[in-house]
């Protein structure tokens, strides 16, 4: 009997029934609205409560300006350094076999499991005037605690895992064959790295760098401890926001908060733009 009429299935087998789809999509949209958009809108509307000019003039206060500059400076130093360290760590872990590899992986994750406040305190203990190391630095006229170097160290510590964590699984999956192929074709180690390894990990790297950047600009706990919160000197944007808020300067606090949120949104936009720009290449090479 070959002429039994089966109903025509227009949908691929992986597609769920319509109702289930709507419920799932609806839930996600509501959750995103409540958890992500509502707070963002609240921040912006609070910042603009007394109008644009009030918000902008509060941002051009010297303290606010120096906080913005400090945060951008910290991100500009920390993110490239951690990108390089992250690549080096991921490279070492995925391309070579050596003793203590598992331990190194655990070590990379350490900043995720240690509270930032603890990290900040540890750095104060290590580099403060009560320790030998700290005393040495002070004797040589280098200030670490309550100064920019301390803030950089704390931020680097807290944001260390982001790049390496993004890269390790990607590099693991890709194995060593392409690099070996490049070497047999006569390429030097560096050439292999720049023409084969780096292009293969560029999207994971970009993502790791963006996460690292967001956290570097937003870090509060570790920086709060080590910076000493010297107004106009060691206050980054998050610290300044908290100070302004505690002083009931709500427009100033929320304007700065909105500016910080804008910086994060700009990085996200940048990523989307790059993905859109290179969509063809992405689909052709099946990487994301």
């Amino acid at each position: 009997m070959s002429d039994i009429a089966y109903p025509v299935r227009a949908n691929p087998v992986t597609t769920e029934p319509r109702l289930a789809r709507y419920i799932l999509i609806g839930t996600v949209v509501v959750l995103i609205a409540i958890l992500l958009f509502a707070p963002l809108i609240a921040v912006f509307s609070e910042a603009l409560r007394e109008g644009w000019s009030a918000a902008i003039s509060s941002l051009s206060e010297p303290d606010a300006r120096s906080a913005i500059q400090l945060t951008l400076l910290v991100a500009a130093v920390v993110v490239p350094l951690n990108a390089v360290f992250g690549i080096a760590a991921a490279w070492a872990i995925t391309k070579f076999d050596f003793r203590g590899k598992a331990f190194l992986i655990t070590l990379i994750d350490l900043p995720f499991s240690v509270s930032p406040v603890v990290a900040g305190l540890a750095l104060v203990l290590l580099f403060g005037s009560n320790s030998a190391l700290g005393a040495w630095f002070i004797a040589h006229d280098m200030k670490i605690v309550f100064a920019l170097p301390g803030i950089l160290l704390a931020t680097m510590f807290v944001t260390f895992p982001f790049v390496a964590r993004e890269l390790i699984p990607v590099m693991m999956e890709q194995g060593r064959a392409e690099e070996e192929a490049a070497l047999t074709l006569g390429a030097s180690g560096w050439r292999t790295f720049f023409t084969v390894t780096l292009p293969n990990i560029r999207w994971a790297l970009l993502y790791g760098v963006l996460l690292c950047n967001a956290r570097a600009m937003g870090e509060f706990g570790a920086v709060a401890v080590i910076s000493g919160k010297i107004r106009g000197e060691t206050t980054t944007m998050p610290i300044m926001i908290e100070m302004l808020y505690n002083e009931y300067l709500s427009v100033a606090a929320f304007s700065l908060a909105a500016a910080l949120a804008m910086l994060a949104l700009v990085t996200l936009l940048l990523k989307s733009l790059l993905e859109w720009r290179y969509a063809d290449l992405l689909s052709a090479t099946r990487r994301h």
Partner: protein
Amino acid sequence: MFVEIEEIAKEFGAERALHPVSLSIPSGALIALLGPSGSGKTTLLRILAGLEFPTSGRVLFNGEDATGMSVQQRRAGFVFQHYALFRHMTVFENVAYGLRARKRKERPTDAEIGRRVNRLLDLIQLPDIGPRYPSQLSGGQRQRVALARALAIEPRMLLLDEPFGALDAKVRKELRQGLREIHDTTGLTTVFVTHDQEEAMELADLVVVMSMGRIEQVGRPGDIRARPASEFVRAFTTA
């Protein structure tokens, strides 16, 4: 180029991948390394390429010691088991890679690179696939592109690790013929790894039968069939 392997042994930690093995590969020969899984074929091939270094023993190229020579200096065209094509480059760029990696003095001009790549794509009978990415090719096409990429560096020898392993029977037959033809036109000393005795017997001038890190027998296909040196060789080559 003729290649001599003198008492090469390789250990990975406590694991012994190769017991001391010796082998002479005449210039221009097409050689098969045949053996079951884990017998050390890939290890031996990688030692020849300079991707792995022996625990003891020597490798000689044209009579000169090449044991410590770097992988780049050896200029061995290597075709990997899963091809290892650069996935973010077009086929053209894949094949051109080795030429572009040369030192400035020895690097051909862009026009010359273009000519050479196109000639190689003609040789593998895929003249039009230059602009495509590896993910847009069939398995057999990828294998041929990997071969063209290895040939582009004007290698001193050709090493292939299970070149037809991942392909269906019909494509295997065609590519086998293709490899034979390319070997005969280039005259390159060629070593390929396989665990398929039929493939080894049909294609190779000389078959090296391996088992558990040892070379069991070396000989022409007919001789190995007629006079197997051990029970293992007899069983494996008639399977």
